[in-house]
């Protein structure tokens, strides 16, 4: 059953629509690329799909139902700015274990070192923090992953490493993925189809 955006519209200010009558469906196990110029609403769309914001009109549906409002959300968002997506006053162990406790093998594959768990977010680089954000988003309850510029801040070797882990999990557990990126080569490499979002005027 798909994750759908059903004729959704959204605006931050009354005089400017960010998204207007947008329809989108992601099937389980499907990898969809999303491209478009900056400011066209890619991140907004990801936030709407994950339930962090509500559309002004239209609905976001998972299996034909609204997203659950409590418990672990089956739609997980990995944001473009990891430093803004973790609680600065929590040790990384607490951030990592908030939703579930990932096994050692996953941490190893993602290159997360044990000693990092005892650190504060400001003691790691953005690329190191992003590995935690990826790990916590791959919980057993995850059915859709929204990767908003997930590996933009990483070097090419680490990017390939993280995508290898995510694509393996997606293949095994039929997780659907929306990949937002400006890197056309990356989209071409990993996604089954891609959508270009035009800015609303």
């Amino acid at each position, binding site marked *: 059953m798909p994750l759908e955006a059903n004729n959704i519209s959204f605006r931050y200010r009354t005089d400017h629509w960010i998204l207007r009558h947008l329809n989108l469906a992601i099937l389980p196990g499907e990898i969809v690329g999303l491209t478009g110029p900056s400011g066209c609403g890619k991140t907004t769309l990801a936030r709407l799909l994950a339930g962090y914001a509500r559309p002004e009109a239209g609905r976001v549906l998972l299996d034909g139902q609204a997203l659950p409002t409590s418990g672990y959300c089956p739609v997980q968002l990995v944001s473009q700015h990891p430093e803004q997506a973790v609680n600065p006053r929590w040790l990384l162990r607490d951030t990592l274990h908030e939703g579930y406790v990932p096994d050692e093998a996953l941490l190893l594959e993602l290159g997360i070192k044990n000693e990092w768990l005892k650190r504060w977010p400001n003691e790691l680089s953005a690329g190191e923090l992003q590995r935690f954000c990826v790990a916590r988003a791959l919980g057993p309850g995850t059915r859709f992953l929204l990767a908003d510029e997930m590996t933009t801040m990483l*070097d090419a070797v680490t990017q390939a490493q993280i995508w290898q882990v995510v694509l393996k999990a997606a293949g095994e557990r039929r997780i659907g993925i929306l990949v937002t990126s*400006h890197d056309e080569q990356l989209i071409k490499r990993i996604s089954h189809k891609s959508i270009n979002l035009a800015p609303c005027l």
Partner: protein
Amino acid sequence: MKHQEAITPLLEVSDLSISFTQYTGGLRQKTIRAIVNLSVNVKPGEVLAIVGASGSGKSLLAHAIIGILPGNASVAGKMVYAGEPLTPARQAALRGREIALVPQSVNFLNPLMRVGAQVRSSALNGNDAAVQREIFTRYHLAAGTEQLFPFQLSGGMARRVLVATAAAGGAQLIIADEPTPGLHPAIVRETLAHLRELSTAGRAVMLITHDIIAALETADRIAVFYAGATVETAPVTDFRSEGELLRHPYSKALWQALPQNGFRPVPGCQPSLDDLSCGCLFAPRCPMASPHCLTAEPALRSLRGGEAKCHHAA
């Protein structure tokens, strides 16, 4: 500008080491080494790109140069700017004037200040409002943008505001720390073209980036960092086809991991400098590693118009 070995570097960093002191409980402290014996230089009229592993100390280098490391950091080694040593007092006098930083995180914007006012505060010459408007126009930031607060900007717009802030002053050395991730290709090209333009006008630009393709289009030389050390410096022309002209195995791995070049990861992760007391830092992941590599640290040596820190490089 290519081939300018004779020109004196504007900034020369040699044998730089950075470590942090941390409390591990009570009054017990431990030291974490982050950068060890790092050397790099940048000349006027040149764009030097620094690429490499995330967490290899690229941003720390930038912060060390302008002297904004946190209080628990200790710095050793030599930094020379325009022929004179960079002391903390000189760094405080130069930063924001002679040396400008385009920071990596959009968190560096003041969340309570309108972005127009932030850019105006760094315009040191002439009418600051006019300078700010001209720069906003150049970066395609709409007229109303100056009235917005940082949380109202998209990721890409926030990046452009950061670049605009550095370009508004008259700095001679511009250190751009990841100025382009998450930007649309057209804006990336334009931002990099602007950095290139600044270097053509005789300024020195240090471009820290993950985007090797962008670095290739902009830079004269590329320095590759791994685990807090420079492993290779190469002219941009060496990055092509299968990467056979590259000197260090990590540079080759980086090149071959690009989505368009094979998307091949290297197993394992970057070592923390405290795990290894001797030997080559890349040896645990290196396909060419021999027993010698695990016991003797290679020196950075000149090779075919570049430099490499590898026993096997030829």
